[in-house]
Structure formats: C-alpha cells, structure tokens
C-alpha cells in the first residue's frame, strides 16, 4: 500500500528539519522523470542548442540549491573561497550526494589556464539515453553541466560549463567530460589572493 509508513506531517516547510532523511531515490523513477524532462523540452524548441540551454537552466536551479544545502549540512558552514577548494567540493561532495560516488577524475586543462575537466565514465543522466545521429553533438549531460555551473556561479566563480562525449578505447560507450572554463575575474581574484 502506498504511503503506509508513518511520516510526521508538518504544517509548513519551515518546520521540517533539514537533516539527511532518506538518502535514496529509485533509479528508475529518476530515469523516467529525466527522460520526460528531455522529451518535454524537445517539443518546446526548434534546435539542439536551445534544448541544451534549457537542460542547463534546469540544472542551474538545482546547483544553486545544492550549494547552499551541502555547505550547511556537510561542511559545517564553511564557505569555499579558493578555486581548487570549490573544484574539489564539486568533484567530491556534490558528486557523492547526487550520484552516490565521487567523480572519476578532475583534471586541469593543458592548453588554457582557465580550463578544468571533470570526467565520468558512465554519467547517470546519460545511462539510459541514446542520442540519434542527426542530433549531432547533443549531450544530455548538459543537465549536469548546469548543476555544476549553478554551484560555481553561486559560490562566486562564474564559469562556462559544457558537457562533451570523449570516445575511449576499450570502452563501448564514450566517456562524458564536463568542461569548466572560468571567467577572467575568477583568475584575477585567485592571483590576488595568492
């Protein structure tokens, strides 16, 4: 019977406690919801870029909230003021809470000073989605890119974040890489803070 468990009903969201509660959400429920999100947005737009932007905006809203909640809950009210600090926060804490594991790798870009990459062998949102050839380079990881952008933007590190497929030898499906390109002011402030 649905809803058989006894959950205390709160009259207002402000009364409800902020602690962890039930950690897990059904994977199938999430995959279904996400696929509906993508399909709904597909009907609303004319081109791929617009679709990616919409997914990113949806993720941005999540990122802004995740930042505040996790800093309060898991980090004992410490803010991140340094670049590496916020990157490792995203790579470990955020990934652990959202996907149940830390991200596979965090790398610094070789060509540009302001580029960083978070890679994931099998990104959760791409797990049950196959992209047809005529959609080109479209990547549903744009949702996760939006989450990362929301976290970075909220913490005061504006960046352009995109998701890319990187084919890997030995793996049937390509790896997903989240590419983070920080704005100029972030690098200047980092240099100033020394």
């Amino acid at each position, binding site marked *: 019977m649905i809803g058989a468990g006894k959950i205390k009903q709160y009259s207002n969201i*402000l009364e409800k406690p902020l602690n962890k509660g039930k950690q897990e959400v059904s994977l199938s429920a999430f995959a279904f919801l996400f696929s509906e999100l993508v399909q709904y947005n597909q009907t609303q737009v004319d081109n791929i870029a617009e679709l990616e932007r919409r997914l990113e905006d949806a993720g941005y*809203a999540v990122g802004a909230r995740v930042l505040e909640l*996790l800093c*309060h809950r898991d980090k004992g*009210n*410490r*803010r991140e003021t340094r670049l590496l600090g916020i990157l490792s926060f995203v790579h470990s804490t955020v990934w652990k809470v959202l996907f149940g594991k830390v991200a596979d790798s965090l790398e610094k870009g070789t060509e540009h000073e302001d580029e960083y990459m978070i890679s994931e062998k099998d990104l959760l949102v791409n797990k049950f989605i196959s992209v047809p050839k005529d959609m080109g380079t479209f990547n549903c990881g744009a949702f996760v890119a939006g989450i990362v952008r929301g976290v970075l933007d*909220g913490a*005061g590190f504006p960046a352009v974040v995109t998701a890319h497929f990187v084919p890997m030898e030995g793996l049937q499906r390509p790896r997903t890489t989240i590419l983070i390109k920080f704005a100029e002011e972030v690098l200047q*402030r980092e240099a100033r803070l020394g």
Partner: protein
Amino acid sequence: MTSTACFIIVSRNDIPIYEAEREDAAQLHQFILHAALDIVQDLAWTTSAMFLKAIDKFNDLMVSVYVTAGHTRFMLLHDSRNEDGIKSFFQEVHELYIKILLNPLYLPGSRITSSHFDTKVRALARKCL
C-alpha cells in the same frame, strides 16, 4: 530594555530580499547597512567562515554580517554586544533561509514574501537578541 535592531537579507546581486525592523526606524538604518556592503564584499573573500562578526560602526550602532555559501548576506544593525546571541540568531535564520531556497518555485534572489518566515524571524529575534 530592547535594543534597536534592523535585520535585512541581501542577495548576491546586492538586492534586499527581506527586511525586518524592531521599531519604526528611519531610512538611516537601511542606508547604514547598504553602505556596509562594500566592506562585506572584500571581507568575504579573505575568510572561509560564514559569521563575519561586527564589521562596521556608525555612532553607537554596530553592523554584523553573516555570509552564506551562495553569497547571500544577512546583515544586522544593533547596539548590543551579545555576540553569541547574534551568532545563533544568524544560524537559525540561515536554516530558515535554506528551507525557503529549497522550494523549486522560489526564484533565488527574489523577495521572500512568506508571512510564516517573517513570523519565525521575529520570534527568533525576540529570543536571541
């Protein structure tokens, strides 16, 4: 004896999203708090703590500030010296703010219009300050 207090929440874009006055205070209180924003801006990047204590003085009034992870600032104008009370006040309001923020229909950076939130903040102010 109640101390004069004015509490505002300022979003990261320097727009006030919530205000609460203890008594009928002049515009001067809000002016003082807004003038202190510049100081907060610089100070926020020098420390990873959220509670920034008293950062500015005006006559006998002090400005205390608490910065959240998303750079939303809670600013309190007061004339008491009760630092622990102020810190616990900020922490309680921070929890309330996060609960408001978690509402998917709340646009971050917009005004907080919930009367329930207002009631709770005023009750906390009476309790802690």
